[in-house]
């Protein structure tokens, strides 16, 4: 519960940070999605129960504040959490290269999913061009910011974790 609250509040701060970034550079079509990186991090670290709930809550908040289709980002973030969780089982999650690649890959999958759902819902929406022109930049932003954001999240998680010593003995990543 403590971790849930800490990460929930952290998510709120990241959401605000993301919005401030967007305000500082209004002309830029893409900007780093800190909250998305948190969702991927939560999945990669295989955080059972609170991970999917957090992912859903963050997606719902994003939908409520900025989205046009309520529930779309909530469902997408939950799926991203699950896919990240699957990948976290198979790779060495502390590698920077992995962190960048997994965040970039998940960004691509999430944007593709949103594009697919929106195109299915409204055949006149024609978001294909938007998807292909923005997805690469979005992958780059999220990938680049994965390293600093993940390292800060790891540090925070270590502080919050009750079994601090045990985590350093080798079970890093498991909550």
């Amino acid at each position, binding site marked *: 519960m403590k971790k849930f609250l800490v990460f929930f509040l952290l998510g709120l701060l990241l959401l605000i940070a993301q919005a*401030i970034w967007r305000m500082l550079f209004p002309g830029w079509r893409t900007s780093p999605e800190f909250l998305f990186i948190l969702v991927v991090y939560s999945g990669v670290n295989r955080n059972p129960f609170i991970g999917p709930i957090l992912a859903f809550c963050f997606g*719902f908040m994003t939908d*409520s504040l900025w989205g046009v289709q309520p*529930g779309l980002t909530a469902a997408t973030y939950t799926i991203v959490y699950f896919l990240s969780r699957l990948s976290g089982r198979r790779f060495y999650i502390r590698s920077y290269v992995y962190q960048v690649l997994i965040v970039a890959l998940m960004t691509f999958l999430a944007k593709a999913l949103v594009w697919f759902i929106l195109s299915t*819902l409204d055949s006149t929406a024609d*978001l294909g061009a938007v998807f292909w022109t923005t997805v690469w930049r979005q992958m780059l932003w999220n990938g680049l910011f994965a390293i600093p954001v993940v390292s800060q999240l790891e540090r925070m998680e270590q502080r919050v974790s009750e079994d601090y010593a045990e985590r350093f003995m080798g079970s890093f990543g498991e909550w």
Partner: protein
Amino acid sequence: MFHFLSQHRVLLLVLVLVLLGLHLLSSGLKHQTDVGVFGKAVLYIYSPIYQVLSWPFQKIAWLVSKYIYLVDVRDTNTRLRSQNQQLKGQLARFEELEAENQRLSALLKLKNSADPPVAYARVVGRSLTPEFRTLIIDAGTADGVGPGMAVVTAEGLVGFVAVAVPHAAKVVLITDASARVDAIIQRTRGQTMVFGRGKSQCTLEYLTDADVVNGDRIITSGIGGVFPKGITVGVVSSINRGQTSAPQGIWLLPVVDLDAVEEVAILAAKPVGEGLTR
């Protein structure tokens, strides 16, 4: 059974949440952009916190933008001086035309179609992802703002209010992929529909008249009652005629710089009809 549930509990939880998300999506489609009580609660709680925390950053952004502005102010100044000379000549002609227009309007007792704004608001947030084109403004139901109201600037149309809480509201821009505006070509009076495409420009669809050229001004038709008649939406920026004379792809550049808009006015909504669809 219990063993299966226990073993796949995370997968089941994910499935339930994804289904819940899709349910919200489905019900959202039924009720337009209504996000429900929880969605409104998020906007209600978040907007004041964000406004307080983002205030210093907005000031920094303002200072930075002013500095960047000063860097090329000399070039701009030279260019503007020459433009100013030309515009002075045009202005004299337009003043004469305006005076004539006023006299004729009074003569014909033409009613001014633009209703006075319900409220004025400051833009306090912009959408975080390129898929959605939305803004958050600092006026809400307490200021008389409600869903479906048109949002404009002095230049033209910005979008419409999707969700409103007491002191904030979410505005869907005309460039959002879900936005549709019933419009007319000012020069020919031909009917058309402006489609948001999720990009910085919109497209014109369902033209009743093939006579459209670059630079044509597109204004709201007033049909449907959402947007008052005569608000400028944008200017035709490019036309793809393909192999036929009939235009196939017409791009419209909004007159309002939607990436930089800072203050807006909200106009009262009339009963929602076919003027705005999703």
